[in-house]
């Protein structure tokens, strides 16, 4: 394990964290505005979060 690789993976994970955080935050705002479309928003949120999460895992496994 080399240090640059680990730092790079850490940077990717920071990005992934910010991304998923933004998705979660936006979903909460959207649900607060339109509580009746809770189900649809949650599904869309989970799909987007899962797709971003994949990138994070790819980075972690590159280490």
């Amino acid at each position, binding site marked *: 394990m080399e240090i640059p690789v680990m730092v790079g993976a850490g940077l990717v994970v920071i990005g992934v964290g910010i991304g998923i955080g933004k998705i979660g935050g936006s979903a909460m705002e959207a649900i607060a505005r339109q509580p009746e479309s809770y189900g649809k928003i949650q*599904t869309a949120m*989970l799909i987007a979060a*899962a*797709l971003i999460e*994949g990138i994070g*895992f*790819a980075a972690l496994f590159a280490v």
Partner: protein
Amino acid sequence: MQRFLSHYYLSDMHRKITVKTITLLLFLVSFTGFAGGDAEKGDQKSEIKEYIQHHLKDSYDFSLLSYTTDSGEHKYIGAPLPIILWDNGLKVFSSSKFHHGETVAEVDGNFYKQYHSKIYKTDAEGTINYDADHHPTNVKPLDFSITKGVVMILITGLLMFFLFRGLARSYATNGGIAKGVGRFFEPIVLYIRDDIAVPNIGKEKYMKYMPYLLTVFFFIWFLNIFGLTPLGVNVTGNIAVTACLALLTFLLTNFTGTKDYWKHIFDPLGDSMPWYAKIPLYIILIPIEVLGIFIKPFSLLIRLYANMQAGHIVLMSLIGLMFIFKSWIGSPMSFGLAFAISLIEILVALLQAYIFTMLSALYFGFAAETHDHAEEHEGEIQHL
């Protein structure tokens, strides 16, 4: 005034006591941190690391727990499993011949040895030859062994078969009303139908995909939950298992793909452009779309594998920390963390099963899409 003073005095005392307690705690933690020789600690760390790596891998015997006796002998509690090899003819023998990877097994004059959880053909002494990159150069026979993971898959399959077969029968005899454990599973089945399959695939075609979606959901969920029990299996954290599941989704998507699905890939712009304008765009677009066919199931397999693997590593590491700290402060702390992570893992077990089913349904929805369906959607948007 007096009340104010006494209050002030009390809160001040409180603060002092808190500061003292924290200092004492920190002192104790630092003290216990340095207790015990460094050499012993290093030994233990590498042992725990080895233990975790062993847990993550599939193994040839179903050992529930192992310990070392005072005389330094390794004892295992569990059962050996059959090993099936194809090496110029079928070789079937019990994994107890390996003595947990410690000895060479002799079968019909051939010698086999386990090295890093893989079986290699060796000579009588069990020598393993390495190439320049320290990879073994020995012959690797085709391995169809019933390993721990395979046993767990078979058990889950049988469990699901008898559970849902019984449920179906109870519906028939009970006038279409769920009975017993069916009252727990009925809402889940209905959820998959009404909130996963129908919205993503469409009302006309969802029935075709329902058996697969239900099977894959319960299969992943049950195996994830089994991974959290003391059985110590890690089936969904095995990349071969998730790869097979993703392969099934891939095959189903592409073999049930309609004309419009393939048109989406090879002619995404349709009639909205003259052919000569499409050419420069399609040089980029079509390779991306074709890659997308493979990337979709690949992301499925990586997601499930990585999530379960990471969960197991975190959980095992926290449990290992208890033995590294060996103190009245460190160990309960890591126990609490391990407990909290276990609760999160129960959620993750369900969530990953849901995500896999959800995304599979989404991909089936792309495959089952017909032109009429797309027009319907456009109509909806205009209507809104």
